[in-house]
């Protein structure tokens, strides 16, 4: 017995230009509720651009973005956060001068249910004991892995229906990367829908339901993650 997948996010023919240069062209992509979908590809293939189009940090030239049945192609970034799309941006972007606690509180900026925010805060600390220890420390003094955890926890604080993770393994030690991915699995198990952009194709596919391969701004392969893991062409190009 299979349940019909419910799409939470649909990209239809998204094209983005930076100046005169085409970054991504005619991207079609679907994320269903409850899924972990990964977008893999080489440096400069347009992975981050795709994510930025969804979080409304860049304007698509053409195409349509549908989120939860609503056209968000021309919405503002702060609006889509309010509607439930949170992102952990590339390079983490934690507020270095503010404490871990303040960073997390700012993550819940769009919410006004104080008691629930406190509860979620405690939950994050339970999930990330290292952040709990360092809650009064300035975020800039954390290690790279801890900053990445903070960036994810901060995004989760907005209680997203869809979580966008941009290169969460970037620049981290292998052991920390494994830790980050176990956190992603936990979030998935807790019912968060995730769109994951990664250069580390193998790890990403191992932890995803479905995957898309982006090459020079266009999607070349897509399908169930285990199928992509077994695909000869994907293997040759990305899995080494």
């Amino acid at each position: 017995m299979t349940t019909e997948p419910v799409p939470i996010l649909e990209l239809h023919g998204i094209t983005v230009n930076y100046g005169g240069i085409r970054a991504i062209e005619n991207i079609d992509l679907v994320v269903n509720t409850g899924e972990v979908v990964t977008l893999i590809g080489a440096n400069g293939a347009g992975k981050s651009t795709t994510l930025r189009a969804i979080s409304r940090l860049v304007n698509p030239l053409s195409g349509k973005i549908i989120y939860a049945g609503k056209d968000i192609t021309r919405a503002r970034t702060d609006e889509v956060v309010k509607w439930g799309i949170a992102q952990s941006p590339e390079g983490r972007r934690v507020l270095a001068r503010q404490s871990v606690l303040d960073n997390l509180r700012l993550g819940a900026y769009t919410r006004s249910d104080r008691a629930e925010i406190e509860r979620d805060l405690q939950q994050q600390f339970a999930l990330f004991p290292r952040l709990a220890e360092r809650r009064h420390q300035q975020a800039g003094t954390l290690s790279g892995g801890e900053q990445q955890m903070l960036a994810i926890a901060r995004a989760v604080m907005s209680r997203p229906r869809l979580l966008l993770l941009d290169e969460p393994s970037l620049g981290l030690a292998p052991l920390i990367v494994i830790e980050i991915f176990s956190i992603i699995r936990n979030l998935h198990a807790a019912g968060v829908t995730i769109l994951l952009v990664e250069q580390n194709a193998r790890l990403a596919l191992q932890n995803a339901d479905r995957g898309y391969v982006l090459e020079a701004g266009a999607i070349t392969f897509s399908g169930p993650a285990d199928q992509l893991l077994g695909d000869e062409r994907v293997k040759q190009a990305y899995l080494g």
Partner: protein
Amino acid sequence: MTDFFNTYGNLMVLMVFNAMLGLSLYLPLMAGQLSLASPGFYALGGYIGAVFSTKVFQSSDGAFPVSYVLLEMLVGGLASGVLAIVVGIPALRLRGIYLALATIAFVEILRVLSLNLTITGGAIGIFGIPQPFNRPLKYLYIAGPLLLFSMFFMYRLERIRAGRALTAIREDELAAGAMGINPTYYKVLAFTLGAILAGMVGALSAHFLNTWNARQGTFDASITYLTFALIGGSRTFVGPVVGAMLLTALPELLRFLGGIDQLPQSVRDLFLNGRLIIFGLLIVLGTIFFPQGIITPRLWERRRRTKAVRPAESNL
């Protein structure tokens, strides 16, 4: 004591005025926006006060009613606020030095306008602005509470959600957006609040100075207000207030030092006539030794932390 207040009454009022003008520049700075537009709004408020009190309100004999002054400040503040929204929405799309340049242009445009309009009295300006008080010191009755109120307002602002949004934008605009903060809204809000304050001070200042012309609100003033925040500190609202008061009182202090007979003549001359040299020297030394300004939040954070730590240490 009365002697002291008579001599320094002017100075004390100026210190309070400048503290508020420092705050007006600090407000957009809270969101990381270097705007030098405050003198423009200050000038606008001043012209509103000057025009109202000389052309609109017919001054009867005796003192000018204080209620009219308050009304002018209200109008000056509102007009500045409306202009700030109109100017701020396009201008605040610019970042960093480009925003600073645009706001300098804004101040210049207002200045040239006031030089050429009939209502502002052209190059001569407006003089004979009626006095609500018989002594300059009494301006503190209005300026003092206004400064206290704006300081209380800033104290609250730095602690509520809006204040946290402003600091988040200052640190990383993209990250702030990713957390659902609308940067444009908060930048325009801070810019407008600063403009309202400058406009109100301007209207009051027109009475205080008795005359108002295009020399009020120039590029020089932009830089002066900026030094208030630079020297005082730009991480908490206390910084620009302290910076403004110190720097406003500095010329008087130098005059006093220049009057000490025991000092060599050359040093006394420097104190008396080299005010701008000393000013510049202070800015250079200040940025080297106090890159964050004299007043930083760390001053009281450190004390709080040592207090919090001590009981735990005593258990060891």
